[in-house]
């Protein structure tokens, strides 16, 4: 018993401040949030009587909320596809051996250092929906290249407008995915490639049977990181379009609900977001924890 305390005591004491903070501000507040979501606190004055899952039922049958979910899905799909494609291509090009690799890498990665609010200023301009004579931004650029037919109203399009909103996000995060893939490429032992080449494998077969399988764990992490960022998308939308119906996602809807003091609705929306996020975060965390146990 004494030994137990000697083992446990000091480390836990050192961890204690953080543990208490995380316990209160992560788990405690999540609990409080779920609690609020099950009341009828739709205004400041409301006492907040328990109503069970009523708010959730209302949300999931509400056209506006479903619209925000659909927007989120479109955004997520385009965002994931874009970052994975650019990230992979950049890493692949750089892995082939390039002079001044560091310069290219730094350029591709630099948008990560900028906030969505700052980049939103310029993207709002680039994605200006005016066409024809009044066009500026990307539409004006398309005219210059004789690609007038590609002009569109960007985020102002219903539903597919979310694909336009994903463009700044892709711009910002592709470099991150590149860095992940590059680390993956560099982690593949040269002998493995050599051996495959010795066996007369074609370049495509080398990728198909050696490189892609080696990269798949990285691709999986990248996928999880990008999707969880996608669920959180908020700053970008606020900066480019403000909280408007057309580009509404659950995160911005939650803000709208909270600013009108509808605590119950805001917390219900937030809980739905948390549940969606948990669906892939928890398996990911459990997986990493198991991996670790195996390796240690």
């Amino acid at each position: 018993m004494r030994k137990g305390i000697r083992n446990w005591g000091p480390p836990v004491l050192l961890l204690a401040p953080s543990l208490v903070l995380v316990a209160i501000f992560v788990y405690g507040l999540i609990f409080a949030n779920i609690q609020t979501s099950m009341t009828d606190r739709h205004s400041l004055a409301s006492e907040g009587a328990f109503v069970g899952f009523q708010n959730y039922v209302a949300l999931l049958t509400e056209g506006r909320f479903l619209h925000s979910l659909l927007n989120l899905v479109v955004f997520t799909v385009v965002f994931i596809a874009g970052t994975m494609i650019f990230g992979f291509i950049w890493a692949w090009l750089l892995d082939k051996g390039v002079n001044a690799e560091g310069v290219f890498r730094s350029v591709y990665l630099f948008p990560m250092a900028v906030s969505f609010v700052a980049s939103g200023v310029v993207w709002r301009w680039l994605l200006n929906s005016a066409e024809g004579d009044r066009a500026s931004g990307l539409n004006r650029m398309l005219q210059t290249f004789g690609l007038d037919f590609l002009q569109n109203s960007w985020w102002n399009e219903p539903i597919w407008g979310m694909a336009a909103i994903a463009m700044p996000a892709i711009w910002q995060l592709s470099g991150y995915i590149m860095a992940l893939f590059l680390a993956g490429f560099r982690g593949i032992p040269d002998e493995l490639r050599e051996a495959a080449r010795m066996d007369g494998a074609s370049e495509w077969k080398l990728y198909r049977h050696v490189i892609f399988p080696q990269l798949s764990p990285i691709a999986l992490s990248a996928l999880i990181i990008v999707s969880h960022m996608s669920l959180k998308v908020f700053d970008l939308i606020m900066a480019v379009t403000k909280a408007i119906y057309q580009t509404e996602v659950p995160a911005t809807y939650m803000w709208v609900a909270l600013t009108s003091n509808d605590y119950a609705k805001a917390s219900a929306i937030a809980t739905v977001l948390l549940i969606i996020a948990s669906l892939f975060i928890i398996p990911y965390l459990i997986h990493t924890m198991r991996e670790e146990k195996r390796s240690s």
Partner: protein
Amino acid sequence: MSEATQTDLSSGVAASSSAGGAPTGKGSQFVLGRTAKYALLLFFVIIVLMPVYVLLVTSFKPPADVNPESSWGLPLRWPWESVNGGPTGFDNWITAWDALAPALGRTFLLAIPAALIAAMLGSMNGFVLSRWRFPHASLVFTLILFGMFIPYQAVLTPLVQMKTDLGLPSNISTLLIVHVIYGLPICTLIFRNYYEGIPIELMEASRMDGAGMLRSYASIVLPLSLPGFVVTIIWQFTSAWNDYLFALFLTDVQGGPVSLALNNLAQGAQLANYGAAMAGALIASFPTLLVYIILGKYFIGGLMSGSVKS
């Protein structure tokens, strides 16, 4: 494969300079491939830098010269020349500076302490969770880590409520506490991964010598921690600097950080003074960009440990 992260990137970078050439012996086909490769890389550089070009040129255009036709062009005049006695290009920068300067100061007062405090706590946690392990350390770590993946919306309603109940001010002091707390998981993660590199035998030897946990931490681990601190502090500084979500929910423009002031400048200007907004975006991004340019290597280190872990 998941161990191919942090360390491999830097070693990979070093290795790449020696592998700078390309597969040999393909003649003219190889030359074409080489040209195509650089052409592609340059094309992507142009795309990535395009928004920066727009920011720069627009910020130096006097409002009278900002119009759709010339929107992609260089400024029509020097930034100190005015149009018919109106504002000049430099006036954009002055407008933006006046709008952002107080918030810039506040954001430094927010981001620096937030980074230092969270890094210190993260270092202690990382040490205990990797080098002075106790039963179920992995589980405790995973529970802490969960806090970094949650959508913060899930805590914001009660957090706003808590702030009101406790009567906390709508300024950066409240935000500082919040950034320290929600920065803990990532800081712990970075340090835990970093300390995996310290041989466990070193710790055991220290235990044998009768050194307690704190002595081992202070005399062995802490002196080796500088690179870990640089990575963590950069990461925390950047995320606190760039944060908009917590700032919007918990502060106001009068007492909040630069992200709020910038958004206010950009969206408050209904008459679309794009020039001032873009100058403001550049000013607000300058500190984090400077950190990135000077300490890019460490910035990437933070990115990597924010993802996969050993």
